[in-house]
């Protein structure tokens, strides 16, 4: 088990046989740093889920479910081990960026910002990455329905 299990603000959990750590925004960076030092040197994936349409989801006791969840997948090459962090984020809140620990999250955090509108403090270049820069809205939010809004064209008079 990773060293971070005993840390303050961490709830360990098992999901389908995979290690999951629920972290709080206060412990998030510290946990990632502690895991980095214990061998989880690669941040393979960072994504988010919008639980707006599923507020009654099951979370372990001690975790307050919020609208968004940032999901970070860390990999330890030396121990051949994976761990997943889940951080609850309320609408409008920002999250500390992992860029200083894991530079690989640069594009991933931009994608999460683009798709969900979650802001990352300390990110060097937080701009849209997949959508055009003048796009309205964040497509992967659950209240952003498919086909509900007219197609937007860059530079066209609206």
């Amino acid at each position: 088990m990773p060293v971070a299990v005993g840390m303050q603000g961490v709830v360990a959990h098992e999901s389908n046989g995979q290690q999951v750590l629920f972290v709080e925004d206060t412990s998030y960076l510290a946990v990632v740093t502690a895991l980095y030092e214990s061998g989880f040197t690669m941040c393979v994936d960072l994504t988010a889920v919008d639980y707006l349409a599923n507020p009654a989801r099951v979370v372990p006791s001690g975790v307050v479910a919020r609208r968004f969840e940032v999901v970070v997948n860390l990999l330890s090459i030396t121990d051949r081990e994976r761990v997943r962090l889940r951080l609850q984020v309320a609408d409008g809140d920002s999250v500390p960026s992992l860029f200083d620990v894991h530079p690989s999250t640069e594009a991933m955090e931009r994608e999460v910002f683009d798709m969900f509108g979650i802001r990352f403090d300390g990110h060097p270049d937080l701009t849209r990455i997949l959508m055009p820069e003048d796009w309205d809205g964040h497509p992967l939010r659950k209240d952003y329905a498919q086909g509900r809004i007219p197609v937007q064209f860059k530079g066209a008079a609206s």
Partner: protein
Amino acid sequence: MTTIDASAGAATSEGGQELKSRREISQKALMREAGAVLRMSESAAAALSEVQGDVGEDQSMIINMGPQHPSTHGVLRLMLELQGETVLRCKPIIGYLHTGMEKTGESLTFLQGGTNVTRMDYLSPLNNELVFSMATEKLLGIDGDIPERAQWMRMLLSELNRMSSHLLFLATNGMDIGAVSMMLYGWREREEVLRFFQKVTGLRMNHNFIRPGGLAADLPAGWRDDVLRLLDMLPDRLAEYEILMNGQPIWRERLQGVGVITQSEAIALAATGPILRSTGIAWDLRRDMPYLKYREVDFDVVVGAHGDAYDRYAIRFNEIRESMRIVRQILEKMPSGDFRIQNKKVTPPPRGRIDESMEALIHHFKIFTEGFKVPEGEVYVAIESPRGEIGCYIASDGSSVPYRMHVRAPSFVNVQCLPHMMRGGLVADAVAVISSIDPVLGEVDR
């Protein structure tokens, strides 16, 4: 919708995605941008005298490479700041092929999802389907019950797909460097593999053949002969291409020492696949976190030593041979039995039963219209695709469509290596560097 638009509009005034000219940005912002490009923190970037050594504004210029450049493998756009022929800064700008596939995945059932994910990395569609199916099976709790034959068949298709993908890499890499004959040969050999896929799945690409629970159909009669013909034909031709390219000083000069990346940089950038292995780290999920039946076959993980474009080319070249070695063992060990799980919840009744049983007809209809319900939970499954670690994160709310379906695309992450590999290199080498990353833009943008 109106409330969201109001808040979202405020959140999108983030400015352009483009690489800004030095004139437009302050020294501090330049530092931060260079830090982003170098993947270093601001303080570490400031310590680099190279960054501080000011280039006169009138000595550098920013040019666009792409999105329509033939050697950017689709619609990758690079903004390069050049001083003469030297690349000072580079920023990849992506999104031109973004079609919202993750959003689409939220409205397709788990059975339909395969048609969606297979179009992401269109050069290795079967690996995409495989990782999506494995994630779904893990959520269903049936990942331990997949029949032996289904697993070996999945492995066979996955390895043949690796071969076809790497053969296409040889083609595009050859064309980018100027070996146009290699382009023709690579496409031709890939087509031989695709012909086998067409016979098995009915389609050359975008098969939707690997499905949750197993596969869509059994292997057709005579498949063994087709695979053997492929395995007998390729070694001689590969040996020929090796002479054609490795034996050519121009080829070696164009690749050796170009686009170098070190071990720590590759790990920091989460590069996987041939890029990570080119630095000497023997990391292959097939061996290090085995899935399917990779424990039972014998193969080597090919690694490089220099982390340059030549190593990445050589690794892919030799991985074709390793895949052929695996395929030969699969031919020997292929068991008989079911090609999909006999679980009525997931598997539709066989075609023959539909004609004689009303219940089977209803069941078949239900599975293909409503789909099957998947228990609430979330899971991340990763496998080794030709380009690196492809992962699938699915969060389910207990219904028959994924609540959230995210694909960790290896190309999306690997493209981040570009600014680093190009820095200080020549603009002509930029083409070789892009080619050695082997990005598939369908997967980068999803």
